[in-house]
């Protein structure tokens, strides 16, 4: 079973990485770029077969380690 986790910064949190990329895109001549936000995309290969169990487990992993919920949100998808 495979889980995909999308970790993104909470909306008010500064994203220097995204800002820098946005600025550079502008300089490269891409005009209509209004904003860039950069997060993490984590793929986890699990032994579990039950999607519900997998989701539960991965959610716990996110809370405990993968995301810092003080400043990040995450979304879990089970394939």
């Amino acid at each position, binding site marked *: 079973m495979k889980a995909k986790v999308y970790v993104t910064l909470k909306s008010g949190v500064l994203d*220097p*990485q995204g800002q*820098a*990329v946005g600025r*550079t895109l502008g*300089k*490269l001549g891409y005009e209509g770029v209004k904003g860039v936000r*950069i997060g993490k995309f984590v793929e986890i290969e699990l032994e579990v077969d039950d999607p519900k169990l997998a989701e539960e487990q991965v959610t716990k992993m996110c809370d405990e380690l993968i995301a810092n919920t003080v400043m990040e949100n995450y979304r879990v998808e089970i394939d």
Partner: protein
Amino acid sequence: MAHHFGVIRFPGSNCDDDALHIVDTVLADRGSTGEFLWHKETSLGQVDALVVPGGFSYGDYLRAGAMAAHAPIMEAVIAFAKSGGPVVGICNGFQILCEAGLLEGALTRNESLRFICKDIFCRIEGRPTPFSKSLPAGRHVGMPIAHAEGCYRHPDVERLEGESQVIFRYCDAEGGVTAEANPNGSINNIAGICNAAGNVVGLMPHPERACETVLGAGGVAGLALFESVLETLSSGATR
């Protein structure tokens, strides 16, 4: 004979002063001079050799060197390199030259995932380049490293090795190329390479930090790299 170095200055470069200090002050009695070249410029002016210094250009936010590779001045740098001019990229400069396609491969996060600043040894190998000519191949020298993304990767490293494009390799104090002597997980302990023509060199260690005894880096091995360029330029070998 006077030789003039250009030191490229990106926003976020922070070893720019260090590099200029060597070519403009420490080596002044050898006829060396230098100036900064601002990233927004589109021409280099009269320079004989280029240093792309270390630092965190544009914050190195996406990948080290990715954004600097697109700076306005890079077109002129690429033209200078293509015409055979000597170019060295140190640390972030190495990353930039890879991202700009002047050097092959890519530099990724250190295997330890930590920034690492310490003295290492590396062995001089491969073909003679303007930056390593005066050092006999097989000799090893001490220099510091200071980087977070120095783990060298190449999709076809055998070819690179076959073409003798590996110029610096991490080794131990005795010159042995061992896994323990590899500070960042680089494939084949690679610390520095050159392009196919040999005039563009990139390395992660900081020769400009190993040029003055007072700085406690335990040696002045880095001077040889800069002296090598001066010799090369004096012999009129390039361009």
